[in-house]
């Protein structure tokens, strides 16, 4: 019996040899994220007349394994904006905590006027502020070779209350466009969205219903062709009135029934 409590519950030295503590030492260069582990796939978003629609499915993949099937990847911040996260899910959760803290601090620092008729959070962070903040954050992380492995879409309204949609990636590259998509969506959904909203002027002609319909159509195309996708997804609409996120959307009119009629591929001979 070893009477030293610090040794209880450990592999016995006389059986397994002394514990090799070198694994615990952080000698050598600092290790940072070198690749994403649990990942989310595309995020897509489209501007319309008085706001922005965004969607992303609820899947967090572990490589090709559909590991977590109920992970909403659209998050609302400062009651004014929606941020959609693609890429590493743990980095998304870190950013979620960080931005929540930030928006709480901002709300205390600059509380909206006592006039309750103004929109909630007015005078604090808007989507353009959040986007610029994220761009600086992600760029400084890439400068330290410790990137946050995400592609992010930010939707909301800018300081002049016009619809705002912008993207930022793990290297701090930021840009805006009437429609945006990350990952597979850039190849599959972006051409469909651009058919309806090539320019800001065209996007300003779209009604909310039309925009939601286009986004739903894109989510279906993505589900059919993106192997790391799910038919359960989140849909967010941001307008002057605020943020509405629905996290339990289901693809409509979707079916694999056509598949059995397809012949002529693989080992099939007839």
């Amino acid at each position, binding site marked *: 019996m070893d009477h030293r409590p610090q040794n209880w519950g450990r592999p016995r030295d006389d059986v397994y040899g002394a514990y090799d503590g070198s694994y615990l030492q952080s000698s050598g260069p600092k290790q*940072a*994220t*070198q*690749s994403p582990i649990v990942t989310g796939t595309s995020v897509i978003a489209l501007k319309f007349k008085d706001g922005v629609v965004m969607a992303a499915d609820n899947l967090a993949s572990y490589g090709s394994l559909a590991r977590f099937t109920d992970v909403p990847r659209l998050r609302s911040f400062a009651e004014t904006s929606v941020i959609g996260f693609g890429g590493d899910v743990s980095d998304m959760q870190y950013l979620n905590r960080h931005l929540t803290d930030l928006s709480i601090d901002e709300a205390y620092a600059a509380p909206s006027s006592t006039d309750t008729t103004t929109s909630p959070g007015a005078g604090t962070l808007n989507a353009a502020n959040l986007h610029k903040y994220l*761009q600086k954050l992600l*760029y400084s992380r*890439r*400068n330290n*070779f410790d*990137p946050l492995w995400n592609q992010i879409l930010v939707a909301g309204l800018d300081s002049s209350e016009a619809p705002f949609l912008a*993207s930022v990636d793990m*290297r*701090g*590259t*930021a*840009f*805006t*466009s009437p429609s945006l998509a990350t990952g597979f969506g*850039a*190849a599959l959904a*972006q051409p469909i969205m651009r058919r309806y909203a*090539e320019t800001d002027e065209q996007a300003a002609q779209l009604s909310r219903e039309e925009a939601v319909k286009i986004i739903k159509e894109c989510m279906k195309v993505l589900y059919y062709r993106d192997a790391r996708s799910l038919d359960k997804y989140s849909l967010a609409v941001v307008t002057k009135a605020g943020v509405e996120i629905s996290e339990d959307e289901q693809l409509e009119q979707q079916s694999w029934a056509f598949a059995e009629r397809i012949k002529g591929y693989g080992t099939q001979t007839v």
Partner: protein
Amino acid sequence: MAMFSQNPLMNGPNYSFNEAPRVNAPEGARQHRFDPYTDNGGSTLAIAGADFAIMAGDTRLTSGYSINSRYHPKVFKIGGTTADQKDATLVLSVVGFMADGEALKEKLDSICKMYRYRHGKAMSVEACARRLSIILYQKRFFPYYAYAILGGLDEQGKGAVYSYDPVGSYEREQCRAGGAAASLIMPFLDNQVNFKNQYEPGSGEGHALQERERRPLTRAEVEILVKDAFDGAVERHIEVGDGLQMMVVTATGIEEIYLPLKKD
């Protein structure tokens, strides 16, 4: 370092995905490493005239074969008193890795604003040009992967264009093209701005050949030249297109012009 070369002979065509790091590790020992750089394509162009300077850039932002945005400016006013840059006298264009390019722009802009605040006057283009070189060289071992061109009017009121490499080597020039289609535009400029390979007809053969005499181009001529250069680049380079943004620096201020380019 082939990565920073604009020479097509070293790289093949200057597409951003040709710049992917070549992994020399033995088979099976490959580790995915974070590459802090990408190339967002696009091209810039600057021409100095007798009493003006024109800075131009296309507005497409790419990543690989994808067009990220059709309107993302590469040409910026620098060193105005306020954020709207109404009283700016200098123009900076950046192309290459846009996150670095914009960080560089913001750094130079804040330095010029501080100068204006301390000295009560705008920074001269000569001073700003040297400062920009120093900013770039300060990151010599983790460079801003951006090709910068600075334009303005010098102390005599003549158009001035300064061009840079990513680590801060710079020189004053009459004209310069930068970015993805630099190798397509620059020879055109040599011929059309500096009249290279143009000779007086019938002046003889060999050493007797007389070069066509150089003359400063007018603003109208230069604007047409810029549009033609970009129309040519759009035709032959997939990373260039969508829109052409031009800033014309004159003694009375900076004029901005936007023209559409092919969106294919």
